[in-house]
């Protein structure tokens, strides 16, 4: 329960910080224009975001005083266990590496490697299945995008 309360608070505070930053940054875009300038919309939105975040924090604090309401919000949220969280982090890390490597090696090689990594991460151990999907899918997508639809995909090129 405390976790949920602190999570709501942290998100509320983060949103206020984000809103304050966007409000301040919007001031930089001031120009001599007639009517409403480029700062108006972002600043109004930032101010409303800060206001709503404050209301959200107050509501979560009020909730914490009512054990019944807190229990309700507790049962609504889905807990993520440590092993699950670790796998999600590894998946995100895998995506980042996949993205970065694609810049140098193009689409096919990194896609095959990423698919193998993800299937192993999720517990797939059937080598034939892994091989078929990880090779077949990138090739099929390459065929559809590059050859049929003429949409270029990242290609391997020597970058120095």
């Amino acid at each position: 329960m405390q976790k949920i309360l602190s999570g709501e608070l942290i998100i509320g505070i983060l949103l206020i910080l984000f809103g304050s930053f966007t409000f301040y940054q919007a001031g930089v875009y001031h120009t001599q224009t007639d009517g409403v300038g480029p700062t108006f919309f972002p600043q109004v939105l930032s101010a409303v975001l800060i206001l709503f975040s404050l209301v959200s924090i107050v509501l979560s604090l009020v909730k914490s005083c009512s054990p019944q309401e807190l229990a309700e919000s507790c049962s609504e949220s889905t807990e993520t266990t440590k092993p699950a969280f670790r796998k999600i982090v590894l998946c995100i890390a895998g995506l980042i590496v996949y993205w970065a490597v694609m810049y140098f090696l193009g689409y096919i090689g990194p896609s095959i490697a990423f698919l193998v990594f993800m299937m192993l991460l999720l517990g797939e151990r059937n080598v034939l299945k892994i091989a078929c999907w990880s090779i077949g899918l990138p090739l099929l997508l390459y065929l559809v995008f590059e050859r049929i639809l003429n949409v270029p995909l990242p290609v391997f090129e020597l970058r120095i």
Partner: protein
Amino acid sequence: MEPSIFQGFQVALEFGNFLVLFIGVTLGILIGALPGLTATMGVALLLPFTIGAQMSAAASMSMLIGIYIGAIFGGSIPAVLIRTPGTPASAATLMDGFPMCQAGNAGEALGLVTFGSFCGGMISCAIMIFLSPVISHFAERFSYAEYFALAVFGLSMIASISGGNVLKGMISGIFGLLLATVGFDPVSGVPRYTFGMPGLLDGVSFIPALIGLFAFSQVFMDISILTQGKFEQPALKNMIPRIGGMLKHWFLIVRTALMGTFVGSLPGAGCDIAAFIGLNEAKRSSRHPEKFGTGIPEGILGPEACKSGATGGAMIPMLTLGIPGDAVTAIMLGALTIQGLQPGPLLFKDHLDVVYPFFASMILANIVMIFVGFVSAKYIAKIVSIDKKILLPVICVLSVIGAYAMRQSLFDVAVAIVMGVVGFAMRKWDYPAAPIVLALILGPMAESNLRRALLLPDASVMMFFTRPITAVLLLFAIGTVIFGLRSSMKSGTAVSDAR
């Protein structure tokens, strides 16, 4: 002899024309179903092919219409099956389509998508054929102030698509509106929040944001469920859609299709906005608004009929005024011009021999779409029975390629990954993602039209309340917010009662 709609059908049903229409619809469904490839992109990709193959005007338009209709429908297939909207317009269908699919009714969900799309498309075709001049005359009265009011009306739907928590929905919406301000300012051209990154100059790309918010966040959620051993493979039942059950909602379908046709006929508005208007209308008119988001038929039929209604609507200003309603019709306008035709009032006077086959092709494309949709639903639905250990990595690769394909930019892939993390955090803390989508669509429209309206001579804030169309739209917006708050409170009470 004066050309008629029957002669239009004769031309559209000629073997060659019908064949390219069939190929167009099928290819369009494939394009729409691939994340990142939109209807606009599909039509743009195939236009050079129609020129290269030296197709006649009728054949060329048949193919492009087929792709357009197919892609708009196809976008909902991955939205329903794997929570990855193939096109932006499908984001609204996902909200009830995916839960229905998770309950094992993938075939029924796809059937509802097909039927809703077909009805919306056919109704809008009828309106397009008989009422084009009247609607385009009304659409001409829309100026900056009216478009701003329309955007506000659209944004007011955040209150009703936020599920049980309107405050969190509003916060998501404002976050989305702030994201929409990134990039060149639409009026002065000043770059905002770009921090020297060229990839942000055109703003946060919509498709990658959509892919991140829905597809990646769902992958992370599924990994969490899978690791904890709580995942149950949905049992496939109701594989064949039941028409009888769908016809029960005929009044909703007709209403949302008419709304979609009107929205589509407004230049600048389109299928994306129409889909959310359809969802809002379905919820507003439902006896059980609290059940939306749990997988009910109205939550699929409303947005689908409205979205497809916009396809016919978008053709109205293009054909009658020569003004494209959206990006797809802009390309079609180009295609007509290449064929030596000038869309506008003279097209109806001088080239009825082209106009009627055009109308007939729209109707036939919808018929082909329902045929392909129903026949394939049973097989496509089996995607959900693929082992998650395989399906999740496949979704990741599809999403990465989808995010890249739109602008061939690896920066967009990074945007999708970041938005995926944001989307996952939002889901963990019950912040709905749909308001961000709505805000990204409508934010630029609201800001640019407000500012342009206020730049006009003698402009004042009061004009938004004194002009009849803006006043009505703003009143609708207030009504929608009140309804959203009421249904949110009602669903909160229902949840408490259930507990």
